[in-house]
């Protein structure tokens, strides 16, 4: 069986694993937008 034949999405861990990685990306985007908006309004310091 090759990698192409295997669908890891069927495994339980892979489902929550994908949720974790989506959540982490969302956190990164939110922190970036929030912090930079504060910084450009002259209120930096949230994550510094």
């Amino acid at each position, binding site marked *: 069986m090759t990698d192409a034949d295997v669908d890891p999405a069927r*495994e339980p861990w892979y489902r929550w*694993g994908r949720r974790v*990685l989506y959540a982490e990306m969302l956190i990164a985007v939110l922190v970036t937008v929030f912090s930079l908006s504060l910084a450009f309004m002259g209120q930096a310091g949230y994550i510094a």
Partner: protein
Amino acid sequence: MQEKTEQLIIATVGFFWAFLMWFSTAAFSTSISSAFTLTTGGLALLASSALWLAPPGRVAAGWAADRFGAHNIFAFILAYSGLMSVASAFAVNYDVLFVERLIVASAGISFVVGIQHVSQWFDSHEIGTAEGIYAGTGNAGAGVGALVLPRLYGTNFDQAFLHLGIVALLIAAVYKWRGRPAKDRATAETARANSNLKSTLYVWTRFAAIGLMLAYAMSFGLEIAMNSWLPTYYATGFGDAIAGLGFTGVAAIQTAAGTFAAVQSFNASLFRPFSGYMSDLWQRKGWTPYPFLSVEQGYAPRVHWLFTALCLIIASLCALSVAGYLGVLPLSVVILAGFGVCVSFGTGGVFAIVPVMFEERPGVAAGFVGGVSTAGGIVYPLAFGWMPNIHSGYALVAIGLFVPFTLFYVWAMRSDRGLSTHGIGSRERWLGPSTETAPGGDD
């Protein structure tokens, strides 16, 4: 819960805490400087010391993980660094504190131990996502430390070091109690049997391993270099623009500059699991778009994904220089955020390949790739600071170092020959005739 899920969680929590301790000294550098009246030079020495032990320490830790089992080595690292963190809370003079924090910072070598641990549990078709979640979540410990610790403890760094050390000891106990070295005895035995000097030299002399090491130096080495360099860069290169936003005074400008720098750190860490996922996806779909890279190896699509990441890192680094020359602060910061994502593509891409390429020697290979490359964190800031114009350092490193690194990567990965012959000396040269070697072969 599946047992491999439990092992992934244990490794991830352990690495998160190890990373938190690794960079906890930096989070309190101002307080430590004030308490012990350090000079600027002394403060810089303290900051750079966090990286000193990583290159040799990771090489040794990777080998030890193969030899003695990741659960034993990870628990040991957390235990000694935790004890030393507790001791550092009671340091009476700066010399003692410096040595104790140097030892605590060595907790960062646990990275390769966890990489080995995860690789022993997850199959090749899902390894990118698993390693990405482990390493990406763990890397975020640095950003979380910078964000939370000063707010939680103020200037009481001794209390923070005490509590961090106690929790590390607890995690070490859990790791030792619940950790298992591999999904089955045969897998663990193969890694153990291959953890000898000849095996190590075999890995170190493979051109593909050297290519991956350079790729990791371009990504993780650059990430930690930027962590220490960016606050200085923005405060110096964009001081007037930051002042124009209303940040007046040295402390305020440093705070604003630190905010911009932290954006890079967060993105580079938290997008890393996505890169591992992308590597798995490319592998599953069989995407190999570059005609100058080999398509013969079983992991070829992962190699192609990593090449994409390396090109993005070079492009975004050059773009940072251009934005600096233009003097447009918002543009520079937006590019920096994208740069962090590109770096994460590189870090996640490398360790989606290493355990697959060196299936029988994951710890030794992770130690080489993840250890030697960390030297980039020490070298790049020197190159950035060496240029007369502060904005040109990025382009210098991108063109002078990263383009040759990438060309070597392409050369190493374009060969259709297997690992056994594409290196300095053949497999037989290092390991002897196949009938006399330990099980496994990575080829």
